[in-house]
């Protein structure tokens, strides 16, 4: 696979991971002792016990990892330009997840609270529209079903 990795300062860290998301680590990375930001908003998505196809006991996530990393980096970049983001961290987990496991975290800080909420919702919406990740519900009654998603949005 080809490398295409030159997209801003935080491009070194992983956006797609096979491991558990360390929520505390992400939140601690938002700390800002110089007080550049006044508001931090964090969204954490987790596996719910009820899905598109009924009762769920787990979820399987798959990604086109290289493209997903690029897409998330680009969404971060656009959000940072659009809102006055001081710190940002976005991670999506893939693989097999149990109920309550965290699938995605979006954490960011801005000077003002309104921007923080807007930016967080903006990033979540674009992830759902553009990032090549798919999920399959592992249903309580035994079978598994891919979630009927949305065609990738291109602009």
């Amino acid at each position, binding site marked *: *696979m080809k490398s295409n990795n030159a997209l801003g300062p935080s491009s070194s860290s992983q956006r797609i991971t096979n491991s558990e998301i360390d929520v505390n680590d992400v939140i601690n990375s938002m700390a800002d002792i110089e007080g550049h930001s006044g508001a931090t908003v964090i969204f954490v998505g987790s596996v719910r016990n009820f899905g598109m196809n009924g009762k769920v006991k787990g979820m399987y996530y798959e990604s*086109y990892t290289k493209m997903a990393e690029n897409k998330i980096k680009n969404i971060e970049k656009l959000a940072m330009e659009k809102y006055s983001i001081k710190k940002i961290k976005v991670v999506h987990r893939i693989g097999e997840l149990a109920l309550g496991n965290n699938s995605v975290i979006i954490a960011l800080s801005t000077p003002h609270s309104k921007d923080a909420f807007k930016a967080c919702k903006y990033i*979540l919406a674009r992830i759902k529209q553009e990032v*090549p*990740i798919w999920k399959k519900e592992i249903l309580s009654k035994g079978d598994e079903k*891919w979630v009927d998603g949305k*065609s*990738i949005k291109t602009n």
Partner: protein
Amino acid sequence: MTTQMMPIIRVTVLYFAYIHETTRKKEEIMELSTNTSIKDLVSIILTRYPNIKNIKNIKISVNYHIVNSNSNSILKNDDEVALLPPISGG
């Protein structure tokens, strides 16, 4: 008279989510003639895997960029092509 070798390129084709349950593989390397377009490749794939449904909802990427599935752009050696069904991240 000498037999002339047809020049070929190799491209990697990736299948995701429910598509790889139809193709029964997540990726394969295809050998194509040098002047194969994106549109040609999509047609080859659909002929090989006629069970791939709703092709209109499936996006095609080449080297991580979404392309038009009817594009006449010619593929190059080592290109990575992916079939991306509707997504459901988050």
